[in-house]
């Protein structure tokens, strides 16, 4: 410490953590607005999905979502390892998480392409909202993967406070992506 008599323990919620928490608040509001749009149009439509579009089959979306939820384990594990000073283990857990998340994304892209075939977004508000909703979430997943890869890279040079706070913020972000994913799949599958 640079000045005499300062406490040795650093804050558990430093400014960087708050920055991410606030960013999540605004992104959560964005998701809230998209989800509300979907529900609004649903309640304003005689049929939802409209005539001619079959409801989404639940099996693969649910399976993929379970995979998404599971990635919470290595991500949190990476932060705990880094906090304990085990940089190598943190990097390994981050890379494991990224590998699973990429396969999640690959599965989602296959479903996305298949859905685009059966219900083009420029034919109905249902499809427009459906794809906007999903696409927004996938974009957030990509951002999360990028953050984890970045920290995996930086942690190969060792742990320091800056990187640790950043990794903590990343785990918070990833939890948010998972919660948004759960609400998303519920809305995706609820109209039958």
């Amino acid at each position, binding site marked *: *410490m*640079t*000045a*005499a008599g*300062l*406490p040795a*323990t*650093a*804050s558990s*919620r*430093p*400014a960087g953590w*708050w*920055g991410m928490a*606030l*960013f999540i*608040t*605004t*992104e959560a*509001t*964005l998701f*809230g*607005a*998209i989800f509300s*749009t979907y529900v*609004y*149009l649903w309640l*304003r*439509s005689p049929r939802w999905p*409209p005539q001619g579009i079959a409801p989404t089959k639940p099996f693969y979306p649910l399976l993929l979502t379970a995979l998404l939820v599971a990635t919470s384990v290595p991500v949190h594990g990476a932060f705990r390892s880094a906090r304990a000073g085990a940089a190598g283990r943190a990097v390994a857990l981050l890379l494991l998480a990224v590998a699973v998340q990429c396969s999640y994304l690959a599965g989602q892209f296959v479903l996305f392409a298949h859905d685009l075939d059966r219900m083009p*977004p*420029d*034919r*109905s*508000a*249902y499809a*427009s*909202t459906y794809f*906007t909703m999903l696409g927004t979430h996938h974009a957030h997943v990509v951002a999360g993967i*990028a953050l984890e890869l*970045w920290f995996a890279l930086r942690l190969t040079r060792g742990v*320091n*406070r*800056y*990187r640790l706070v*950043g990794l903590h913020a990343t785990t918070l972000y990833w939890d948010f992506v998972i919660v948004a994913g759960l609400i998303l799949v519920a809305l995706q599958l609820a109209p039958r």
Partner: protein
Amino acid sequence: MTAVDLPVGPQRVERLERIWTPRPGVLGWLTTTDHKRIGLLYLFATLMFFAAGGVEALTMRTQLAQANEKLVGPGTFDELLTMHGITMIFLFIIPITTGAFGNYLVPLMIGARDMAFPRMNALSFWLFLASGCFLYAGFALGAAPNAGWFDYVPLALKQYDPGSNIDFYALGLILNGASSTAAAINFIATIFKLRAPGMSLNRMPLFCYAVLAVAFALLLALPALTLDCIFLELQRRLGFHFFDVAGGGDPLLWQYLFWIFGHPEVYIIVLPAFGIATSIIPTFARRRMVAFPLVAMAELLVAFIGFGVFAHHMFATGLATITLVFFAAASMLVVIPSTIQVYAWLLTVATGAPRFRAPLLFIGGFVVFFVLGGLTGIMFTAIPFDQALTDTYFVVAHFHFIIFGAAVFPILGGLYYWFPKVTGRLYHERLAIVSFWVTFVGTTLTFFPMHIVGLLGMTRRVYTYEPGLGWDAYNLAETIGGFTLAAGLLLILGNLVWSRFNGEPCGPDPFHGGTLEWTVPSPPPHYNFAVIPTVRSPYPNWDRTDAGYDLERGGLVLDAGHETPSTEVRDARLEEILSMPSESPWPIVLAACVVLAFVMLLAGHVLITAVFGVLGALTLGAWHLHEPEET
């Protein structure tokens, strides 16, 4: 250093000077992360946009001064009215209150040396400037946004507005929203974590409460607008269906999302003005603010309740009666927190020993306009009244009384009030008082007759009107008022510019204010505080003399680097020392990547957009490669 007792030895002060000296020249300004420099950059940029918005207004007023005037045609008039609204709201009032006043003052008021995220602060500014240039580029290309600042569908859809006017609108506002979101995050993190030791939340200045309320409102309201603009672009460019009934959509969806943003937006506009008023009043009334906790709460309440009244902008759209009545009820109640504040201000002046210097006069003008504008606002909560007068000049009168009278007047007062702090010189008092009266008369003459002409049936957004409807004299009066108002504003500008070079030099505290910014020299040194103060009350500058306590008790000089303390959120117990970045090129580079990506998106070059996106991501990486020094 000026003639102020140095709290620490001159060697340590010299060290602080050396550590915090900015990079010289234009490069220093382009790469600055200093909150005071960024505040000034915002000030100059917003004043330029204010002038542009003013020219648009005066052109419209000249066109409307007489019946069947032929100064501009309907197409141009549509662009003028749209750009006037967009400029004044997104490019003037929000950036000047948050970006200029907020950035310059918040760290000084809380005893910090900078904002929590200095580089992101710079990014906010460059993104804001880019969004303004982006929107005005539309004008240069003859394709300025032209569907009103609310941009209702179906008018804004490709079918009725095929050019790129609306694309400039949608993409420009998304860019502007990103800038404001980053700024909001910065303000909240700063107010939560960077307050001086001892500045518990109940000892924080009321201006900071206003900024906190605004920042939260921005965070929660902007996504609705961003999403609306995304939907609009997806429908216009890719044929998606959100707003057309034939495709299963709903045109009201645009309005819902717009007003869920739009109503909190008007509180975002007026709350900082409340904050400025609650800063000026105690100083010139020479008395602490009456009911301080209630005023602080009222600022947050106005922002919060503002989210639940938005459908009152849709009373004439055919919504179910049950919805209308619910929102009318909520709209009546949002008045209460504002009224609490008005009473607190008036009681503070009445029970104090007021000196009616120019800043307080502007606050007086503000209270007059706010009460009148607030009353016409409440009239609109009566649904039948609203349905008869929606989209008439009565609405235009109401919101200009609030936006000009209640939001701009405190800004003008604030410019005079903090001018000595920023420049180290006093403004010319007599000229300032004259400038107040000219502006006050001009504002009244411009906007009061609009109530009458609205009741007589003149609708909004008309580019001309037939003679003999009884509107002519009022319109002429409004135009004369507009030019008078402009003269008042020019007097203010002239006073400030003249005083900058010829004003009488002043010390740190010419008005004897109570908050921390008055404890540092004028202008503040680059490091703000030689010793980070330890605070014991909401009016530390008054209490240090009254109660005789030592602000420098903590001994926090922090001259080992570019440092400021971080404290706990509620009671501001000291936690750690933060190392702040100094100049950095990455914010302006990232802003350039982002705006170029938007330009390419507007032009339809998706691949090049992606390239700039990737460059932006790489810039973010370079940004974070530079880590703060650890001790």
